């Protein structure tokens, strides 16, 4: 596999509600990154482990070993699985300048961007998931949209990660969902400009 090129470590914070698969999303993103040749770290900030309660999870992706174990304080990207969490004005705390947020919402992206003062993209991931898998689980659609926007990983890496976690009909539906979701966003709109090679650092 080609040595991956990253501008440095990329950090994510995923916000969701218990039951939406936020922790699974973190693990899937990390597993997809591994499939694409990166090193990865994903973990939850466990607190109230109950359905509907706010949940946070973290992902780090790098081409070199990741030693840092703290929660992600200054994410490059936020993935927000539930638009009701947008009522929290501190949701984007620590977001790096130039960072971006991907939100599961039917709202206008520009409106969200204005509210939080950062790049934002809204994707109706719950609706897409209802159409394809029949369940309001937005995580795989959001990950696919993120991959479409950034081009950071090939979509096949996410497909491989999904195959490691699911099988049968659920897998097939999710594979169809990620194709649809990746195509629903402007490809490469958030492309990361490689600034330095870190693979052999």
């Amino acid at each position, binding site marked *: 596999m080609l040595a991956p090129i990253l501008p440095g470590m990329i950090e994510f914070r995923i916000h969701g509600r218990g039951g939406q698969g936020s922790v699974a999303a*973190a*693990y899937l993103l*990390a*597993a997809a*990154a*591994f*499939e694409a040749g990166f*090193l*990865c*770290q*994903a*973990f*939850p900030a*466990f607190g109230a482990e109950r359905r509907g309660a706010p949940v946070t999870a973290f992902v780090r992706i790098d081409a070199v070993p*990741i*030693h*840092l*174990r*703290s*929660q992600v*304080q200054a994410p490059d990207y936020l993935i927000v699985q539930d638009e009701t969490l947008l009522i929290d004005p501190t949701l984007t705390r620590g977001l790096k300048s130039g960072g971006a947020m991907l939100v599961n919402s039917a709202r206008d992206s520009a409106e969200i961007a204005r509210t939080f003062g950062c790049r934002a993209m809204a994707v109706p991931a719950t609706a897409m998931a209802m159409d394809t898998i029949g369940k309001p689980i937005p995580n795989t659609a959001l990950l696919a949209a993120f991959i479409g926007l950034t081009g950071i990983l090939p979509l096949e890496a996410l497909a491989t990660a999904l195959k490691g976690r699911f099988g049968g009909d659920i897998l097939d539906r999710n594979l169809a969902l990620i194709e649809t979701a990746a195509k629903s966003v402007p490809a490469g709109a958030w492309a990361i400009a490689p600034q330095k090679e870190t693979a052999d650092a």
Partner: protein
Amino acid sequence: MREALEGSQAIARAVALCKPDVVSAYPITPQTHIVENLSKLVAEGDLHTEFVSVESEFSAASVVLGAAAAGARAYTATASQGVLLMAEVLFNIAGMRIPLVMTVANRAVSAPLSIWNDHGDSMAVRDSGWIQLHAADNQEAVDTTIQAFRIAQDTELPVMVCMDGFILTHTMEVIDMPDAAAIDAFLPPFAFSRQLDPGDPKTLGTLVSPDFFAEIRHSHHSAMVQALSVITDTDSAWHDAFGRSCGGLLTVEGDETARVGIVAMGSTVGTLRTGMAHSAAEAGPARLIKLRAFRPFPTDALRKAVAGLDHLIVIDRAISPGLGGILGTEIAAVLADVPDAPRIHNHALGLGGRDIPETIYADLMAAIKDPDAPAFSVFDVDLNKLAPEDR
């Protein structure tokens, strides 16, 4: 083979590679995923073991005690209140010199209730007579778990593998899972000298009169001291077989010429490593000492590791109220008769899951410049959260 795995899943697979005859455990956060995954391996036919579901940690420890005494390779795992509920049995296991392996998914101890990580649980059974090894990342946790089965057999002592709850147990990262055939070659079949045998009857843990109790405690202590070389030899053999090491008793990294050292156990080491890499230019360089063996305590190795230092920052992930740091106090004791020993700055931090940011490195390095700093502090305490009379 390198895989992206959750720490707990990797530990379950590592345990399975060691082919335990008996596994018994009671689920408790953040250990649960380990026994869930083991249970799944058994249910799916990938692990042939007697998986004994029990109603408490006291029973889990009792089951593995009995199983190992009868000649079975046995494994259990717990955390926090589970460690405390096991405490009586843990002393019995060690006192009877039963070789078995337990994972502690380190978690704070109640009250107040906390499900999050610190080292209060394994520290509470510090004097139980178990070997205690701390893993700094999930690769080390996997490798140490397998090594622990061999160390337990070679020393006839139980081994506790401590891994930070959530920070390691619930973190997915890239782990190189060893090959099953290589583990078969590394780990000899289970056997130990005190094994119960109807053909050669013996009693374990019987009433011992004052005429012999001191001798038994002495021999236990002696076995623990001898275990130091078994731990390093096992890690060397691991390196020969798998090309990587967990660092024996302790490892030293960072700037060799630094006058400041930092000692830590567990996952905090990685965060300090990152903090040092990013801020050593401003905050100053350090020698980072990753302590893997806490029991037996690597006195000689530690004395060597701190030679030439002016300051030694010792990080405790637990507290002994009324004294201060546990590791810090022990290190002060083993350095007491060392000429020109470094000044010790002992800090507890990350208690009850308080996040440890990478800026902790610069903050710890800055704190040594205060000549009036107390010998011990809860470093990340926010006194503003306390009423004046509680500060």
